[in-house]
């Protein structure tokens, strides 16, 4: 048993239960939100083309599971490919930018300018260049998720403590050793943090691309459903996209805790 003394109260929390509460917390919040949504829809008789109630959305999810999964698979595939591209290229670019002052000075302003361009405007150009299909979706996912990875890896590398660098150089370490043996491992926490952001951005990118020009994908499904006045199907698509984003996020969070557990190790609160 862990005793926590507050100002005037004494709270005794069984240590074994805290973990359970933490895992259940997001599910509880989600359920409360859904219940509230359902109540609002019922109480105010909201028309279903404005805001469909969760029960209707769930029914649509179950009934059109086949087509939804068909499109979701496509979005998942294009997002993962685009994301994989941005991880590899982002890592390489981040290393270059973070390790060499010339590269930083030369490329960073361009990267920022490039990232400020709304990708919605870029998709039509990609479609004209590469045709409708997977390529614009993969590229848009890549373009949206690339920048956070570059920034975080570069920051991680550039902020290696100068004293550490001096000591290593005094001991005869070459630049390459510095990057590979000290800089990179040290920037892993930053890298994984950026991956969690980047994966959600990659989803945004591919869905945007699909809603502008595509023949398959959740974005296409949502646009077609909207034009058919099937708003509950639009919401079903939104929920499926959100779910895919959360699953990927959790996957990377687990990967992160395995690979960078050493960075967040803390003594247990007594």
């Amino acid at each position, binding site marked *: 048993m862990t005793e926590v003394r507050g100002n005037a109260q004494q709270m005794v929390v069984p240590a074994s239960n805290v973990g359970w509460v933490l895992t259940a917390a997001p599910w509880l919040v989600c359920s409360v939100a859904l219940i509230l949504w359902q109540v609002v829809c019922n109480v105010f008789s909201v*028309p279903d083309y404005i805001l469909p109630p969760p029960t209707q959305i769930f029914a649509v999810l179950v009934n059109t599971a086949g087509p939804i999964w068909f499109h979701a698979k496509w979005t998942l595939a294009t997002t993962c490919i685009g994301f994989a591209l941005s991880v590899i290229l982002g890592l390489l670019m981040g290393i270059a930018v973070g390790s060499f002052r010339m590269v930083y000075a030369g490329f960073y302003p361009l990267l920022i300018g490039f990232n400020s361009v709304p990708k919605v405007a870029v998709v039509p150009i990609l*479609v004209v260049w590469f045709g409708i299909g997977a390529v614009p979706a993969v590229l848009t996912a890549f373009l949206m998720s690339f920048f956070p990875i570059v920034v975080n890896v570069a920051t991680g590398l550039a902020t290696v403590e100068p004293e550490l660098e001096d000591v290593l150089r005094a001991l005869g370490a070459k630049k390459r050793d510095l990057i590979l043996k000290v800089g990179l491992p040290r920037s892993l926490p930053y890298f994984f943090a950026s991956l969690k952001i980047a994966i959600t951005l990659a989803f945004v990118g591919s869905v945007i691309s699909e809603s502008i020009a*595509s023949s398959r994908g959740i974005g296409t499904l949502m646009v077609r459903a909207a*034009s058919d*006045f099937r708003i509950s199907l639009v919401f079903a698509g939104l929920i499926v996209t959100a779910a895919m984003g959360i699953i990927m996020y959790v996957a990377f969070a687990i990967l992160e805790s395995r690979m960078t557990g050493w960075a967040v190790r803390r003594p247990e609160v007594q």
Partner: protein
Amino acid sequence: MMIGAKSIAALFGCLCAASTAWAQTPVRLVLDFAIQGQQSPIVLASEGGYFQRAGVDVRVDRGYGSGDSITKVASGAYDMAFADVGALIIFNGKQGATKLIDVFQIYDSAPMVILSLKKSKITKPSDLAGKAIASPPSASSRVMFPTFAAVNKIDVSNIKWLDVTPQLRETMLKQGQADATTALITDVAGLNHLQISEDEISIMRYSDYGMNLYGHGILTTPEFAAKHPDEIRKIVRAISEALKAAIADPAIAVAALKKRDPLVDETLERRRLELVVANAIVTDHVRKSGLGAVDMDRMQKTIDLIAATYKQPPMKATDLYRGDYLPPTDESMLPH
């Protein structure tokens, strides 16, 4: 200086008084699409002072497809829409109620077409089977495609739909990524703009293949019409007058467009306006009976045809279309 409760109460009181003394809020009208030549008569009504002279304050905004505009009026975000009555029939059918009504039928004939390059050899509806068709999902020509396919018994199972935003439609056709596209006749002007000449384009009109439908009109909710009948009459009259002026001299309408958006290409938009006037607005029936005159039998046939495609019970034409907001016939007649 501390803001005390008294000052806050005073400020609140002033705001309340100001809002009640505020002139009536403008009527919000949403168009079917971006502001182009075919929407210019309504823009003319706004920029050319027709609404002002009629004593109404109307705010005209661009739209994102007829379907979307109808949903916006149904949800209360807008009061009126300029959109396709076919899309409205589908919407009302799906909701099982007359959510919106048609108060001014502007397109006497829906100018929907299938455009393709002559080299694709798509000359009749059945040629579309198995082809790649580029089409924005919420465009009226796409929304009406199932009905077109049903009437002409097209095998739709192998059609590859390329969902694109309207801007990409012509490009897809030119590049050869799409064999055909669902469009309005005004999009021929867009193809010309991409250096595709008339003789390279194959135009398949829906109206030539059993789709004798009414097209775009001014739509609103029954509740809004019941609350503001005079305003609707004034608005319909102003739009009718602006239409007559635009038909007589397209240059005025294009000038109004230019006033609203200096970036418009005048030649392109004028061509679009002329195409929609010639193909959709000034038909033989309108020449005989005036702008906005509706043949209720034909309206009922339109409803029945669309309802059959979507397996909905057809609504009554008299519920959908209310002709009592039109100006007197002699004012709606076009000069000969």
